[in-house]
């Protein structure tokens, strides 16, 4: 018995070592290692992009690894230290470039960079282009228009407007939402807003996205935000107004926010349990992919994040990007060349563009895409509508200028303490200000 076991073990070890060798030696092809940021489309990269690219360019082998949600920075850090580091990786903006200043390769001579329609969107470091955006995204309050129509058809509604599209400031939004909360049973929902998810790792919808309009109102643009040594949080009260509206009209009571992740919030929306949820167009896949999804494609629409900031009637949803690709200059020249071949193929060949629009569902900033080549998902169409809306300007993403991850963590925890009733809002504001000053000085602003 024991002998048999020993033989078996030795055999197993022998076999596994054969496989281990086989994997690294069998291919004479150049490996292109891409560290993917977006877990929600990880399957598309491995099941669609990889086979299609390798069929088109048999000399290359595409290796896609996806970091777990909220773990990209740490995964990237450890992967870069390995002997076969990723060639293509994502940076989330200027702060991400600063973190990887010794790694990013110049891109101005690549075909990939030259696909950009507006070259000004790329990010530079010391006179070199080092990061190219690949997807434009928009976020706001996603609402289910079927439920909204049901509400506006109520005989005893408390507002004068007749459709969700007429909501154009915080005051109206608040009136509608609070009146909807009073009519939950008639509307067949359990709350107006989906859970304000605060499970560890799910705080990003508030620490980056929700704070963006307040940051933008104070700093105007990304360059100013990124250079700011202090943050007054001038629009703290405005932030609180919308945040409280979320919390007070939510499906989840305040005490329960810690047990919900953002995935739970999206499911609540998809199942028709709530009418609104704050998220962006990347969440379309989550909504449409939920088993038992009750929301019709045409009913998924965006509202801007109204928080009673002056002039918000002419402000749209938040459109921008934190999705930049950079090349690793420490990778082999063949791999870097391969990376350029791969991305150029993906974003300019007919087959690649098909995949980008239909499977990856990106709205891209590249000239190779015509205006009708946008993803056929409802939220991407909505982003397009809001981008081109008459008399409305989009709010750019400036939250990439937040000095460090630590600021987001501290701000998130302060908000959680506020929800738990142990912090006043003033303490949350103070935390945001103090942490900003501290983190800004630590990063040398």
């Amino acid at each position, binding site marked *: 018995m024991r002998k048999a076991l020993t033989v078996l073990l030795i055999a197993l070890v022998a076999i596994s070592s054969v496989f281990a060798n086989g994997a690294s030696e069998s291919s004479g092809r150049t490996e292109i290692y891409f560290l993917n940021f977006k877990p929600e489309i990880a399957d598309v990269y491995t099941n669609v992009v990889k086979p299609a690219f390798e069929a088109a360019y048999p000399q290359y082998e595409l290796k896609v690894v996806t970091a777990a949600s909220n773990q990209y*920075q*740490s995964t990237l*850090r450890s992967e*870069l*230290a390995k002997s076969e580091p990723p060639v293509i990786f994502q940076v989330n903006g200027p*702060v991400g470039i*600063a*973190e990887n200043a*010794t790694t990013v390769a110049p891109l101005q001579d690549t075909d990939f960079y030259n696909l950009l329609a507006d070259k000004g969107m790329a990010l530079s470091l010391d006179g070199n282009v080092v990061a190219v955006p690949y997807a434009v995204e928009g976020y706001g309050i996603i609402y289910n228009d079927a439920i909204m129509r049901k509400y506006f058809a109520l005989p005893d509604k408390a507002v004068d407007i007749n459709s969700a599209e007429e909501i154009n400031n915080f005051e109206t939004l608040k009136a509608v939402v609070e009146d909807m909360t009073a009519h939950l049973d008639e509307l067949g929902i359990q709350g107006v807003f989906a859970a304000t998810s*605060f*499970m*560890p*790792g799910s705080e990003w919808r508030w620490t980056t996205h929700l704070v963006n309009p307040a940051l933008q109102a104070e700093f105007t643009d990304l360059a100013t935000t990124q250079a700011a040594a202090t943050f007054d949080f001038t629009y703290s009260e405005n932030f609180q107004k919308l945040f409280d509206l979320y919390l007070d009209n939510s499906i989840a*009571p*305040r*005490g*329960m*926010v*810690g*047990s919900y992740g953002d995935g739970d919030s999206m499911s609540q929306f998809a199942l028709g349990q709530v009418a609104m949820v704050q998220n962006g167009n990347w969440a379309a896949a989550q909504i449409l992919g939920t088993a038992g999804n009750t929301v019709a494609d045409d009913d998924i629409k965006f509202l801007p994040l109204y928080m009673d900031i002056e002039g918000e009637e002419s402000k749209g949803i938040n459109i921008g990007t934190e999705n930049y690709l950079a090349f690793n200059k420490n990778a082999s020249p063949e791999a870097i060349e391969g990376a350029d071949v791969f991305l150029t193929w993906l974003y300019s060949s007919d087959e690649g563009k098909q995949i980008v629009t239909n499977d990856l569902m990106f709205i891209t900033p590249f000239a190779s895409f015509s205006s009708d080549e946008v993803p056929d998902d409802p939220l991407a169409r909505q982003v397009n509508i809001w981008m081109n809306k008459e008399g409305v300007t989009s709010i750019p993403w400036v939250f990439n200028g937040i000095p*460090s*991850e*630590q600021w987001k*963590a501290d701000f998130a*925890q*302060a908000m*959680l*303490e506020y929800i*738990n009733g*142990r912090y006043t809002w003033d303490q949350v504001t103070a935390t945001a200000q103090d942490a900003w000053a*501290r*983190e800004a000085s*630590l*990063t040398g602003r």
Partner: protein
Amino acid sequence: MEKSLRRYFPLFALPALICFTIAFLIPMVWGFVLSFCEFTNITDAHFVGFRNYIRAFTVDNYFTQAFWFTLAFTVVTVITINILAFALALVLTKNVPGTNAFRTIFFMPNLIGGIVLGWIWQVVLNGVLANFQQTLLSDSKYGFWGLVILMNWQNVGYMMVIYIAAIQNIPTDMLEAAQIDGANGRTTLFRITIPSVMPSITICLFLTLTNGFKLYDQNLALTNGAPNHQTEMLALNIFNTFYSRTGFEGVGQAKAVMFTIIVAAIALVQLVATRSKEVES
């Protein structure tokens, strides 16, 4: 025999020594050096002196906060785990029916990994707290006691097995002699059983003490330090320091070195203290 043993000793010890050097000694020495450096990965480190150690305390107070939390947690779990494990071992060495089945069941939680356990208990505890409209993140005391419950559930079985082995090794003639001399259960427990299992108590205290200090995955999965870093333990704080800011890798490393020294010192003190109570059987 002696002679050939001595001759072949290096040969037989070599594989283990090489492994120990590569996987433990070199990283440890390197880690110590890195704690005095600023670096993003180990190839671009440069010396900055004690700055990392100063920054570990001056930038925020989370490290000291994590230390007191970890200390409180360790004290509580060392006491509860050992008392529970010893009590179970006592019961399961009496001839109760189904002893083996119970031993297996109590041991089983130890076979599940920490992250999985953390998630399981997060669901269970959040489910219970939901009755009061609360979650584990509502108050740090829930996180604290949640971790204590989790740790007990996981470790009691393991320590129990060690205690059972020790109790079974107590010579029966000693117990019989005590019985004949008219010692009651209490006297037998404190005068014979406990002194006889003292070596096991040393081991179990050591294991629970270091396990308590080193706890990471359960902490990460259960609360991830929330709310407001109040349930963040030392290991988690070190990890978070390493990744939360640009240029803070060295500070995380400095904290890790201090962590090692603290744990080693406390464990040594404990070993010396309990060893002195051991009796030669």
